[in-house]
């Protein structure tokens, strides 16, 4: 018996009701997706597999569909460059003249800084390897500010890597597949970046809100911030290297402190991914994970020559300390003997007054032990 001959032949389901059922089920599904989309401990999201697969496919497709737009953009740039070449040339010449002085200062300061680092034995951060990337697509809305870039785990990119353009910090990598990565911009509503104010070294947190100029929050210290102050990454927390330029402080329309990002000076199409994870890559992880004072139980026994040298050094230190203590005691005794006595001296016979009196031994000049001389702390001197 065919289906149309059966009892369901004249069954008609209202379209509105079936659509309403789909709507209710879809809303419940969307709510469950929202609740279930959480960030895991390694920085991935619960649906990172789905996101990664989609982004791996969307990268090439987006590149093809965006080609005409890029072409139009390059034509616009060419037209603008043609008509504004003279004014641009003047501006660049003035800029070069201004930067020549800075260049000289920078060379001198770099030299002095290197000498200081060598003298003080500072452990400076090693050079950070970088990977150049091309932005494929961009999200600029109030709810998400992100970009897809065409490098991924195959080139060593990992979640958390900072991303810069030629002007300054842009954001950090939030998701990685083999050949495509997603980076969250500093302007994203979920972005938090520890920064410092270059002039005062005060700390703050750069908080994105979807606008072009992220907010500066938790600024510590009165007068720590002025309009025009340069903002750099502080490196606090270890997620970013210290000193990457971020932007310039400014007052927002709502009265809050905001940052005009250096990366806003042009389109963010080519970027560099810093293959920097955290401070853990700068040191030996095994040494960091060793228990405190682990060397006491693991160091080898000294050789006979080392033991003799150690004993000799200890004996020398002990003799030197004993010598200093003796000198200090002698100086104190001499000071006590030379102090004026308030009671009158006893009467002496006349011949005794004319007889030569040997000078007391304490009056002879003796070397003062450095430890016995009173010194003033700098506060006391003031």
């Amino acid at each position, binding site marked *: 018996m065919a289906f149309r001959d059966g009892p369901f032949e004249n069954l008609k389901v209202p*379209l*509105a009701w079936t*659509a*309403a*059922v*789909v*709507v*209710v089920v*879809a*809303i419940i*599904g*969307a*709510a*469950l*997706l*929202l*609740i*279930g*989309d959480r960030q895991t401990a390694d920085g991935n*999201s619960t649906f990172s597999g*789905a*996101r990664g697969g*989609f*982004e791996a496919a*969307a990268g090439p*497709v*987006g590149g093809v*569909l*965006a080609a*005409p*737009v*890029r072409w139009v*953009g390059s034509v*616009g740039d060419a037209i*603008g460059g043609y008509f504004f070449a003279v004014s641009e040339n003047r501006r660049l010449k003035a800029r070069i003249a201004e930067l020549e002085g800075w260049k000289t200062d920078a060379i001198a300061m770099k030299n002095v800084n290197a000498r200081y680092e060598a003298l003080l034995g500072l452990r400076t951060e090693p050079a950070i390897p970088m990977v150049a990337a091309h*932005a*494929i*697509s*961009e*999200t*600029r*809305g*109030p*709810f*998400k500010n*992100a*970009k897809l870039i065409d490098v991924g785990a195959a080139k060593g990119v990992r979640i958390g890597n900072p991303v810069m353009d030629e002007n300054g910090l842009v954001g950090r990598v939030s*998701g990685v597949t083999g050949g495509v990565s*997603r980076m*969250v911009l500093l302007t994203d*509503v*979920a972005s938090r970046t520890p920064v410092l104010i270059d002039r005062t070294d005060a700390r703050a947190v750069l*908080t*994105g*809100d*979807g606008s072009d100029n992220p907010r500066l929050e938790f600024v510590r210290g009165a007068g720590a911030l002025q309009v025009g102050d340069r903002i750099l990454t502080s490196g606090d927390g270890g997620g970013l290297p210290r000193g990457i330029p971020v932007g310039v402080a400014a007052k927002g329309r709502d009265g809050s402190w905001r940052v005009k990002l250096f990366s806003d000076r*042009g*389109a*963010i*199409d080519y970027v560099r991914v810093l293959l920097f994870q955290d401070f853990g890559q700068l040191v030996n992880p095994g040494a960091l994970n060793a228990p405190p004072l682990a060397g006491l139980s693991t160091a080898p026994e000294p050789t006979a020559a080392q033991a003799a040298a150690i004993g000799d050094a200890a004996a020398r230190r002990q003799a030197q300390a004993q010598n200093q203590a003796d000198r200090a005691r002698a100086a104190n005794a001499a000071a006590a003997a030379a102090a004026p006595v308030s009671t009158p001296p006893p009467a002496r016979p006349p011949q005794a007054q004319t007889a030569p009196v040997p000078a007391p031994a304490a009056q002879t000049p003796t070397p003062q032990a450095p430890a016995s001389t009173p010194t003033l702390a700098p506060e006391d001197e003031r």
Partner: protein
Amino acid sequence: MRRPVAVRVVGPLQWVVYPSLAAIAATIVLGTPIQLFGLNLPEPVFPMVLAFSWPLIRPSMVAAAMLFALGLFLDLFWGGPLGLWPLCLMAVYGILLVSRNLLAGHEGLIRFGWYLATTLGAFLLAYVVVAALAGNAPSIYALIGQIAPTLILYPIANWMLERFDDGDIRFR
């Protein structure tokens, strides 16, 4: 003798699938990271047009399911919380599905007023969800910067209603 009359059937391919593909393509194209004359490209929510026009054209399970898929596409392409735009688009679709009898026969300002109200409602819902998830309220200026281009798309929604509403003679 009656002549055979060619009946043009407007099926789901015409009013559901093709507009969906167009919305996806437009979203990808406007996601290009370039600046034209110093300005970024706008980023409207193209599926909002479909969420407004589809329930008024005809209630359909296929359209509702496709709208859900479009919302998922937006979340995946834009990198937002998964489920955000499906929720907002389905909310718009559901409200218009319930109130389509009220809107029947209305045109012009009243229709635009409904488009404005439902769009603002969807963005308000998205704003609340994102603020709750991120623990940080998005900028109102940035919000307006996405609402305005979405509202400008109203003529497309109006054209779809004029073109496809009552277009399938099987539903007369």
